[in-house]
């Protein structure tokens, strides 16, 4: 109980809520890198997923590539990128290293879902759209994508939660997010700081999950809700 009250004191201490090392700044950094990674993954994943959904060999490629990519530990990717001289010498090298690793983490769920979503658009819907005189790109933009959107968003939700949670590891290579509290706490044997940081990440991940659930519902075509 004494420990928990220390954590509460740490989290309510005004000095921890301002400046570059303050909670708002670190939460912002964590959300910033996550948003960048998921947005990039959405562009790449939806594009690739839609293309692969056109071919019959698509499923084989998607499932195997996504499974292999999922087995790559983010921790290894972040540290490997984090020591490359070309990245180290950048002004925001740790952001680049963490960002690329988070992009790699976000692509598989988005890609798989985009592929399934586009593939499962009915053949009759497609023929109807073509019969209405739609060009290929219109078919994608006005029919396939809107119909696949709920499934794509479900993938984006999974990816977002995983990325927000895992971006914490970026602090290990020097990216200034909530992981900084955890790693500083571990290095200084300050259990209170470690615990407070962990708690903040957990709450942030749950909040992102809820926010994405709302976005998922808002973006679903009304007939699909």
């Amino acid at each position, binding site marked *: 109980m004494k420990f928990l009250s220390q954590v509460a004191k740490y989290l309510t201490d005004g000095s921890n809520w301002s400046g570059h090392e303050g909670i708002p700044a670190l939460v912002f950094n964590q959300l910033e890198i996550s948003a960048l990674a998921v947005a990039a993954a959405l562009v790449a994943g939806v594009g690739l997923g839609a293309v692969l959904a056109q071919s019959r060999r698509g499923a084989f490629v998607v499932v195997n590539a996504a499974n292999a990519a999922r087995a*790559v530990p983010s921790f290894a990717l972040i*540290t*490997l990128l984090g*020591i490359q001289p070309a990245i*180290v*010498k950048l002004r925001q090298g740790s952001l680049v290293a963490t960002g690329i690793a988070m992009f790699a983490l976000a692509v598989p769920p988005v890609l798989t879902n985009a592929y399934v979503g586009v593939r499962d658009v009915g053949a009759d819907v497609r023929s109807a759209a073509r019969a209405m005189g739609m060009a290929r790109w219109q078919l994608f933009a006005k029919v396939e994508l809107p119909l696949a959107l709920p499934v794509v968003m479900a993938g984006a939700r999974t990816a977002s939660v995983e990325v927000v949670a895992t971006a914490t590891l970026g602090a290990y290579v020097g990216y200034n997010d909530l992981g900084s509290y955890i790693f500083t706490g571990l290095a200084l044997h300050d259990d209170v700081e470690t*615990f407070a940081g962990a*708690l903040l990440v957990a709450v942030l991940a749950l909040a992102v*999950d809820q926010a994405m659930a709302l976005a998922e519902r808002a973006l679903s075509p009304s007939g699909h809700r």
Partner: protein
Amino acid sequence: MELAASAGPLVQWSWISSNEGTILSLLWQHIELTLIAVAVGLGISLPLGLAAWYWRPLRPPLLAAAGVLYVVPSIALLSLVAPLTGFFSVTTAEVALVSYTLLILLRNIIAGLSSLPASVGESARAMGYSALGELLHVQLPLALPSVLAGVRVATVTVVGLVNVTALLGQGGLGQLIIQGFTEDFNTPIVVGLVLSVLLAGAADALLVLAERLALPWRRRPKRALK
């Protein structure tokens, strides 16, 4: 000023051959940590899944609790548990690893059992099975594909997560990753990454094989249909 940093070639083979013993023992530790986590995870989620299947109201709170555990990031969960179970202990690593398996396993166990049509239970009872016999000989075997699918996902996930537990002194191959980072040296990280991916692939392949052996009746109709 430019840092004259060089992380060496991507793979320095001589380092691998001179550290073969360490690499193998870390690989073994990685396998051990994974096996314990999946076994304990199954040990916890099987009875809980059965309970939730018998007693429906238990399902939402159980899945919600497992869901919360699943969303907590691994390094955060490790650091949350560490002050309670001791820093750098196997228990700390396992508590975190097991909690990630729970949601995956519970979902699949409950889904597998509840997808069985009621007629299955009725026929079993008509054939004179006791409640326990019905569960052991009819329902669990029929739910096995779903359960094993969960075990596959859980195993692959845990193989990846074990690396992170290295930050708290365990972690098998994760220790190679930390070594590479602190020494600014590519090879150990690449070895850790590649072995981790291969281990996940091998575990998955083994489980697919186990599924085929355990469920011979699932193969025949498939072939007949083709």
